[in-house]
């Protein structure tokens, strides 16, 4: 039997998993390497586990939504990711979907509270 905190954590994780793709795509209009992306998302209030983000970036690249390139100019080699044409198109659609969803959820949750 799971404790209440464990249940809470699991459900939160599930909620967040869905938005990670959207969050990552939204911040990759300019090329960034993984660690910088995590920092940026964290600065804007979204904490992502490193272990989650890197595999996600690779999957998105496999799906053709991201493009990547090694950059060896800095102190160490870094893999820079940038959104692709297909990724941009998908981001547009996903953004609309997300905003609609937020409206609906707001209605549902706030009416319930009253």
């Amino acid at each position, binding site marked *: 039997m799971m404790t209440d905190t464990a249940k809470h954590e699991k459900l939160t994780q599930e909620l967040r998993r869905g938005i990670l793709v959207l969050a990552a795509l939204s911040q990759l209009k300019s090329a960034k*390497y*993984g*660690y910088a992306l995590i*920092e940026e998302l964290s600065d804007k209030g979204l904490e992502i586990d*490193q*272990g*989650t983000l*890197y*595999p996600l970036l*690779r999957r998105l690249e496999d799906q053709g939504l991201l493009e990547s390139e*090694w950059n060896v100019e800095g102190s*160490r*080699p*870094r*893999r820079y990711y940038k959104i692709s044409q297909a990724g941009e198109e998908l981001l547009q659609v996903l953004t609309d979907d997300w905003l609609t969803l937020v409206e609906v959820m707001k209605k549902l949750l706030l009416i319930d509270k009253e």
Partner: protein
Amino acid sequence: MELIDRYVHEVGRHLPRKNRADIQVELQSTLADTLEDRVEGEPTQEDVEQLLKEFGSPQQVAASYWPQGQYLIGPSLFPLFRMVLGIVLLVFVIVQLVLFGIALVFNQEVLTFLDVLETFSGMIGSVFTTFGIIVIVFAILQYFEVKPDSEDEEWDPSQLPQIDDEETVSRGGRVAEITFSLVIIAILLFLPDKIGVVLVLNPFTEIILNPVIRTYIPLLIVSILLGVFVDVLLLWRGRWETGTRLAKIGTNLFSIYVLIVLLSGHNAWLAEQGAGGFFSFLEMLDEITISNQESVLIIGMHAFRLAFSIALIVISIETIALVYKLIKSFFVRPTTINLPG
């Protein structure tokens, strides 16, 4: 930093081969970035250990790079796997037990406890082998991503079976039939010298062989195997439909042909012995002395002929019923349910 190298190396061992080096470089530079960000100056051993702990164990990190949902036998194949496994193991165990029983009956020597133990341990061993073979077959299907039902095919709700559907194949009946068939095949293959009339004469049991069946063993096996094949097909489809009915009718017709061949073989043999008619057989019953092998064989052959005749009649009736249902299925649509309102 030596600890980081060891960590990256260990992650690499569990990574997919394709991107291994690439992922390792990225991981290394990420760890260095994080460490640089966190610690001013030279990081201590504790700093590095703390960081690696947060990242997670090498196996865990590597696992997240593998494609999601890796299965030996995945959810779409598993129900079929479970069904096949259950049926095959059940049939397998029953066939072995029956053959063991037959061997017991014909064995003149006294069995020791050790013999029984040996037989059963052999049986358990072969159950595991069978299990393994089925798993391997399904793992191969999984590897090539074979799906039990074609997903592109649109399903038709109007084809849903009725709740008390007469067309549903009874699983138990098919399994029983397959088991019985396999026992017969095993006897035909491995014990052909036991097919005949068993004459119990104390203290010896003697078997007088049926001379006709022996010549038709390959034909019999083919016909029974066809039956097994159709039973498996029926279990797979789960329903009587045009295809399965036609297959069953086809194998039945072949069985009828084989039975007729066997019957005429018996007739010819009996005529040769001057005991062709059924009534002459009844007359003989009075005169028979059990010690006379020849007359025992004649009675036995009559019995065989009778058994085959009954089988022929049963199969013919079954076939006629199948043809009737096949024709009916073309004319009668399934009844629709009338909802109130």
